[in-house]
């Protein structure tokens, strides 16, 4: 047998086979990944939660006063007939934080819808304490226990703060206030027979931290 015939019988040598084998393997792999479709089973689980209700910050006054947001509390017992120069009258007011969040609150005062006094007559001061109303004879000079929350001021035409530093109220907490209203001793004679109401606005804000 000639050498050429012997080479044909023996076939290609192993070192020459790797190229076709690799090509075949690549083709098989591409065929499997590109053209095979898979069926997947699946399931969906739905969770329905309870209701998420937003909490509210509610500052209430006395017993059942100013319930709800932005409400008004007519407290007609804060009043005086026959008020004379040099007299001061003390009245109680309790604030409650009925929410579950801590809060701080401040207050402003201004003349109410009825006002007949001049600007240097009716005085106002707020205390953290309780009223002493034992003095009922002329001139009535009632007082408040506790510490003043701000300086005494003539009741202004526009809202003016009467609490120097906001007061903290724990969740469910309350604080007793004393409202001291007076008629200045130097009030002019033209104020005789005048009438006036006050508007006291307490604003609570949720405390953070």
């Amino acid at each position, binding site marked *: 047998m000639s050498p050429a015939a012997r080479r044909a019988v023996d076939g290609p040598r192993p070192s020459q086979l790797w190229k076709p084998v690799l090509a075949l393997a690549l083709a098989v792999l591409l065929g499997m990944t590109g053209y095979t479709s898979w069926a997947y089973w699946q399931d969906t689980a739905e969770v329905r939660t309870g209701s998420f209700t937003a909490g509210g910050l509610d500052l209430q006054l006395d017993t059942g006063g100013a319930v709800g947001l932005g409400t008004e509390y007519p407290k007609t017992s804060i009043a005086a007939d026959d008020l004379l120069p040099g007299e001061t009258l003390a009245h109680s007011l309790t604030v409650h934080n009925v929410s579950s969040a801590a809060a701080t609150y401040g207050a402003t005062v201004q003349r109410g819808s009825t006002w007949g006094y001049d600007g240097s007559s009716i005085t106002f001061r707020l205390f953290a304490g309780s009223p002493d109303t034992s003095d009922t004879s002329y001139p009535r000079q009632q007082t408040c226990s506790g510490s003043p929350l701000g300086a005494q001021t003539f009741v202004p035409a526009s809202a003016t703060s009467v609490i120097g530093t906001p007061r903290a109220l724990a969740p469910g907490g309350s604080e007793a206030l004393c409202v001291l209203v007076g008629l200045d001793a130097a009030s002019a004679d033209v104020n005789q*027979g005048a009438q006036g109401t006050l508007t006291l606005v307490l604003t609570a804000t*949720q405390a953070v931290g």
Partner: protein
Amino acid sequence: MAAAVAVAVLLLGLLLTPGRTWALFSDTATVSTGSFSGTLASPATLTCQTEGSGVRIGWATPTNRQFRVRVLGSTGTQVYATTTTDNSILLTPSLLSAVLGARYTIEVRTIAGTAWQSPQASSRSFGVALLGLWLVC
């Protein structure tokens, strides 16, 4: 040195970290008060009765107030302010007026503070004569 640099970097990081913004719930409660009225009532009708060698002028209302008493006579006017909450004043005519005879008019006003006085004054007159033996309201 390395520790100081680390602390400085940490502080710088804290400074550059944007602060959190919290939405805060709030509530406003408005208190509307009753009325504060300033009035000064005038004294009620004056009473007059002799008491010793003088005359006591009295009034029933208002109580717990301070009063200014003006005595108007032929020789002039005298003013007395009650320093207490008395509701009467004893006036004793002078010896001269008792000898010569005189007639007095008493006016009483309620006063308060430094400026207030009642809009109306109550008045009463009395006379004296015969060395004070004759006193009549």
